[in-house]
């Protein structure tokens, strides 16, 4: 079976499991929305300030909770399933790619929900014409986050403190995504070019994809 078919099948099963477990949209997304609502409450009545910090709060919460989506329970598997996949001849790189694909779709959906809520709650200054650029940055950050989450989830696989440890590993490494995402929005609001920030996101995504493929076999062995 080809690399692409394996990737699609593994992503399909990850998504099917998430539909049944529902962690991303039943637990993580509501939690993120609560956090989103907490900032204006903490700020009190300083309405203009709220519209100024909207995009920044969106990206900070988007990275922190998007990371939890990437590390959700349905993105991890037990030893038996690992053995099963290995003995069905699944390419370790396809395992990585499939997990990243499923994670990217879920994280994108999550970020879109969070973005819409942020626009409603904060009323930031973002022109409608910038919608494609906003969508592009959300997708690229989602891909990078789920690549990082997949790598860190594998590195911390089967350990007692998996979720907390993987979060600690992902958070500092996600800084380029945070900077690029928030600066894209800043640039849009200021009417400046977004090309450097798009390039930065592209570089991060590509570098992580290379790392994921190059490390796929050592990572599989690491979880013996």
């Amino acid at each position, binding site marked *: 079976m080809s690399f692409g078919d394996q990737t699609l099948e593994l992503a399909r099963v990850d998504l099917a499991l998430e539909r049944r477990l529902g962690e991303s949209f039943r637990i993580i997304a509501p939690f993120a929305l609560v956090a989103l609502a907490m900032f204006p409450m903490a700020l009190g009545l300083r309405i203009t300030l709220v519209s100024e910090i909207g995009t920044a709060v969106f990206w900070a919460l988007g990275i922190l909770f998007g990371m939890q989506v990437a590390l959700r329970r349905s993105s991890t598997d037990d030893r038996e399933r690992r053995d099963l996949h290995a003995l069905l001849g699944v390419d370790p790189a396809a395992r990585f790619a499939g997990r990243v694909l499923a994670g990217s779709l879920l994280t994108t959906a999550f970020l879109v929900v969070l973005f819409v809520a942020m626009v409603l709650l904060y009323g930031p200054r973002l022109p409608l014409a910038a919608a494609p650029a906003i969508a592009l940055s959300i997708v690229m950050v989602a891909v990078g986050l789920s690549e990082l989450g997949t790598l860190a989830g594998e*590195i911390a696989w089967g350990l007692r403190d998996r979720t907390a440890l993987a979060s*600690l*590993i992902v958070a*500092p490494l996600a800084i380029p995504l945070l*900077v690029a995402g928030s600066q894209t929005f800043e640039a849009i609001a200021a009417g400046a070019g977004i090309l450097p920030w798009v390039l930065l996101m592209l570089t991060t995504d590509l*570098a992580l994809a290379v*790392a994921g493929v190059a490390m796929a076999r*050592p990572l599989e062995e*690491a979880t013996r």
Partner: protein
Amino acid sequence: MKRATVLVGVAALAIAVGLWLALTAPADALQGAFSRIINIHVPSLWLAFLAFGVTAFGSIMWLWKKRPRWDRLAMASAEVGVLFTAIGIATGMIWGQRVWGTAWDWGDPRLATTAVMFFVYLGYLALRGAIDDPVVRARRSAILGAVAVVQVPLVYFSVNMFRTLHQTQSIRPDGSTMPREMLVAMLVNLAAFTLLYVALVVARMEVAEAEESAAEREAMAGAEVKPPRLSEVGDV
């Protein structure tokens, strides 16, 4: 422990010389005595970068050769690197408070990159602490060590599209922007700190090796299950 003891002794001597030079060299006109902090600040951060580079090198060598000593090198270097990063950040903040008028500035790429690097390697050490099996630990942390080093230049780039508050380096290919006495003092300190780094890494590696063989001996002893003595069950 002999090799490490000798190295630590030599390093201590070098640090003493460095300290004496640092305190006797003239201070900067504008900054006053606070300029002497660079004798700790610059060598610490130079070593932090060196240490994390060595960690990445050890990680990649482990993935290639699978020799335990590469894992010990990566671990020892990361621990010492985190220590030096902390010293470098702390001294930088003291200096910044006095000279810039602020201890920290988030718009600055160098400060941000250094902070991120500090957190990345705290995560690396946390990962090591969470795994008991030496081979699994070596393998997983080697992967993280190799991947994290790719991200450091990206973080640097991501914040480097701004201009900086932090000065550029004072030592350049076309000469130095520092007076000679100050430069000599700083270079001596750089050498002394590098020696200290080597000594600490070697000592840490020796300790790790001793710990591992002790753990192995412990694991070898008493691993057998004896058949139960069923006739005696009633007496328990």
